[in-house]
């Protein structure tokens, strides 16, 4: 089993090195795509085998070697494969495999094809470290590793020009990459503080040791640790107010958005909360958990409201990701960790599918993102249409689909907990989710063929790519059917969350309410956007001028606010400091240089060529030395 752990962990790493070391500078090499996809596939197979093993025999815990050993601090390179991490491993490796295969098609015409695979595989490796580590230090390394890979991949097309904020809110890939990286840095500081607090008070970073020691710590301390760790999770999972980077991260290639900014990396924050469930389920940190749940519900609604008016196809999907992350945090905050994990997995499948479908559309439309320019594309892109339809059904939470089970469970949890406000928000958001996701589908695939006027000639993706996406579609439909099995499997490790009798009693009504809302949302969207000819959708200029539309379209002016009150003052301050730096530090350095020059100029007068003059100088030097010796002799 130990070998399987290493295979699952290092196969992506080998792939990354293979692509990065041997082919970084060579032109597109198809071999790289094939080899890397195969290696990730191998990791997936290893993860499956491990999952079966874990289900039967329990967790696998290996220690590869000691890593940091200084004084009392001892952090081994240990890997823990238990029910939680193996679930994450399965999700990560499966989605990665499909995204890798997808990328061989999607990145086909890109100059930096090999580089892309080096980064993508490195990301998978970092993510595996993140989920498999048996201590907080390893988790943090993975955490930073995925951050770096995310930065590299968002900024993959770094050569693109900057555009003004009004025209493109994410300005340029390199700008978006930096934004994501810097915002995550802010959050990571919180996480580091949490880790330091844990080490300081527990003396170890191993999960098992820490969680055993937690109940003995003071309440205030536990709250601080919980808050600090959650700040880290907020950054990585793009929770308000650190959420703006996620939508801007859509500047990266679409497979990256699907893998990193939808299915895996952004869920790392949720994973952290789930992983640290012994901490968050303590009574002392109940308020923090409630805050997490409330923030999750708020973000779910907030992001969904922004998605209602978004025109950028990837931005819509990104906002729905944000919204679904809110759902996960709501569940985790309410103590239903296994439901959060279940929704995480289900979401990973259908959201990756949705993103890849959106990628197909983009590919067909020559990277055009505006859904206002699309329409009626189902004729030319049947495969993508079906996939995106399935994914949207799953996202909307219609029966039978994966999203139905997981989202319904979260809504039930909120009801069961008695947090009716959260419940209400989540139910309304479910309706909105259905509306905006189908708004996007209808805009893209139904209605007038607006693209024709603009001179696009869309064609569907390669066949093999569409076939490779099939597993995601199957899982997006069927993953929910295994909810009971998953429940049984995961609650060996995570605390169970039992619905009360009353909730059971009302469950059918709650479920129906959600379904009714979702179906209503879909019908409205169909009415509004899917019509043809005389019924076709027309822009409502008047509505677009209204305050609410403006507010939502501008993302509640949060990016503007950041720009005005953080970025610009910081820029001004930086410029001032730069000037101070130039005057003081540079001045000092220049002074040293000038002094050398001056002393050279002055002492050049000594170089007369006259030996006796030299002798005299030597005499003066000797005298000075003797005086120095005399002074030391007399003083010392």
């Amino acid at each position, binding site marked *: 089993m130990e070998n399987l752990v290493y295979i699952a962990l290092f196969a992506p790493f080998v792939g990354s090195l293979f692509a990065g070391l041997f082919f970084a500078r060579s032109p597109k090499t198809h071999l790289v795509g094939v080899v890397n996809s195969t290696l990730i596939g191998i990791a997936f197979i290893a993860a499956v085998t491990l999952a079966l093993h874990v289900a039967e025999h329990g967790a696998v815990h290996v220690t590869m070697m000691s890593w940091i050993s200084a004084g009392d601090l001892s952090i081994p390179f240990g890997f823990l494969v238990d029910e939680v991490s193996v679930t994450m491993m399965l999700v990560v490796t499966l989605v990665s495999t499909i995204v890798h295969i997808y990328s061989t098609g999607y990145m086909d015409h890109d100059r930096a094809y090999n580089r892309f695979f080096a980064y993508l595989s490195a990301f998978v490796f970092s993510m595996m470290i993140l989920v498999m580590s048996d201590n907080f230090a390893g988790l943090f390394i993975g955490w930073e590793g995925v951050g770096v890979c995310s930065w590299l991949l968002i900024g993959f097309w770094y050569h693109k020009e900057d555009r003004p904020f009004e025209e493109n809110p994410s300005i340029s890939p390199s700008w978006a990459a930096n934004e994501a990286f810097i915002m995550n840095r802010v959050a990571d500081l919180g996480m580091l503080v949490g880790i330091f607090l844990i080490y300081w008070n527990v003396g170890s970073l191993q999960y098992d040791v820490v969680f055993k020691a937690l109940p003995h710590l003071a309440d205030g301390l536990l709250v601080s640790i919980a808050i600090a760790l959650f700040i880290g999770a907020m950054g990585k999972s793009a929770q308000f107010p650190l959420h703006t980077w996620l939508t801007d991260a859509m500047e990266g290639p679409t497979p990256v958005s699907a893998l990193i900014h939808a299915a895996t990396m952004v869920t790392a924050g949720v994973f952290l909360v789930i992983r640290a469930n012994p901490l968050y389920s303590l009574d002392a940190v109940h308020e923090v958990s409630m805050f997490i749940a409330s923030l999750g519900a708020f973000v779910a609604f907030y992001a969904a409201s922004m998605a209602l008016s978004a025109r950028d196809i990837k931005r819509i999907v990104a906002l729905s990701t944000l919204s679904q992350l809110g759902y996960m945090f709501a569940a985790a905050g309410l103590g239903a960790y296994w439901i959060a994990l279940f929704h995480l997995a289900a979401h990973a499948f259908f959201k990756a599918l949705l993103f890849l479908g959106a990628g197909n559309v983009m590919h067909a439309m020559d990277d055009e993102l505006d859904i206002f320019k699309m329409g009626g594309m189902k004729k030319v892109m049947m495969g993508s249409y079906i996939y995106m339809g399935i994914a949207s059904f799953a996202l909307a939470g219609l029966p039978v689909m994966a999203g139905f089970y997981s989202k319904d469970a979260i809504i039930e949890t909120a009801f069961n907990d008695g947090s009716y406000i959260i419940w209400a928000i989540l139910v309304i958001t479910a309706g909105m989710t259905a509306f905006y996701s189908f708004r996007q589908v209808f805009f893209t695939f139904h209605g007038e063929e607006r693209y024709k006027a603009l001179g696009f000639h869309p064609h569907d993706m390669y066949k093999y790519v569409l076939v490779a996406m099939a597993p995601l579609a199957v899982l997006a439909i069927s993953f929910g059917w295994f909810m009971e099995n998953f429940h049984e499997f995961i609650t060996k490790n995570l605390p169970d969350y039992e619905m009360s009798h009353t909730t059971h009693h009302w469950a059918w009504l709650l479920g129906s309410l959600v379904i009714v809302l979702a179906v209503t949302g879909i019908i409205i969207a169909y009415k509004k956007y899917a019509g043809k000819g005389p019924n076709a959708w027309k822009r409502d200029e008047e509505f677009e001028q209204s305050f609410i539309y403006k507010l939502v379209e501008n993302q509640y002016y949060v990016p503007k606010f950041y720009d005005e009150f953080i970025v610009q003052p910081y820029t001004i301050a930086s410029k001032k400091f730069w000037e101070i730096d130039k005057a003081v530090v540079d001045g000092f350095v220049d002074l040293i240089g000038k002094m050398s020059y001056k002393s050279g100029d002055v002492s050049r007068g000594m*170089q007369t*060529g*006259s*030996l*006796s003059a*030299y*002798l005299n100088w030597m005499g003066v030097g000797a005298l000075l030395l003797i005086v120095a010796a005399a002074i030391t002799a007399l003083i010392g």
Partner: protein
Amino acid sequence: MEIGIGHYLILSGILFSIGFVGVLRRKNLLMLFFATEIMLNAVNIAFAAIGNYYGDLSGQMFAFFIIAVAASEVAVGLGLLIILYKKYGSLDLDVISTMKG
């Protein structure tokens, strides 16, 4: 009156200073050699005196080796002087100014 180490050392210092003045003042290379000999001898006196004061033979040993070094220096130095004299026809330092950069 007792003659202590201080007397010898001060004498050595004075002699060294005389040599030093010679080195600075004279322009004739041969004279410079003489001045150097004076300085070496001054140091020898200091060594011998300190060795005597501590009752240790190492001082004398050093003086001994200094004499050896001085002898070789004179041997080589005079050879060089002769060549210089053949070349420039003079031993004046001011004549030899090839060091000018």
